[in-house]
């Protein structure tokens, strides 16, 4: 299935754009999605952390991705 991915901060710069469309296997988990993304953009592995938010909430790695999910890549936050 096709999913839309939002990227922010240094992840956006590494991926070269804010919005990315990716083809992933049906029923992929967050963990599997992270592996697919890291394979395409190996520099993401150098980050201190990288997590995924779905529909504007932090989620666990076992969470299954659904087609309509709003997926965002969250590199280490540094607000304040």
């Amino acid at each position, binding site marked *: 299935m096709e999913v839309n991915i*939002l990227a*922010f*901060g*240094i992840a*956006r*710069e590494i991926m070269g754009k804010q919005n990315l469309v990716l083809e992933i296997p049906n029923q992929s988990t967050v963990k599997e999605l992270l592996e697919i993304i890291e394979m395409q953009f190996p520099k993401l592995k*150098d*980050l*201190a952390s990288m997590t995924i*938010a779905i529909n*504007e*909430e*932090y989620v666990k790695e076992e969470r299954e991705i659904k087609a309509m999910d709003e997926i*965002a890549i*969250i*590199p*280490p*936050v*540094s*607000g*304040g």
Partner: protein
Amino acid sequence: MIKITDQPINITEVIELVNASGAGAIDVFIGTVRNKTQEKQVTRLEFEAYDGMAVKEMQKIAESAKSKWPVQKIAIYHRKGVLEIGEVAVVIAVSTPHRKDAFEACQFAIDTLKQTVPIWKKEVFEGGEEWVSAHP
């Protein structure tokens, strides 16, 4: 009273938002842009936010502060975009009946914001730039 804005933050406005008849104290945290990081001279900061989620996470901080301390009102405003040295990046104001709780709740709010809210800060130096905390 949570806001992400690309306009300068009016500090007085944020403080007035939390004034309450049951409050004997208002504690305010103001985060400003510092001119250096370790030995490097910073020329400006660029803040990027995942707006919708950042507001939700800030709302969670406000709710959490209210559950831990007798918070009358709390306001959290965060700026995004390009900020020059000395500009205000974040303002948190908390009102409580007594001062100790206001200090504690305000510290909790800024400490948690730095850990959980999806906002990113890039430091721009003379001849370089760096996303803060991005690499180990």
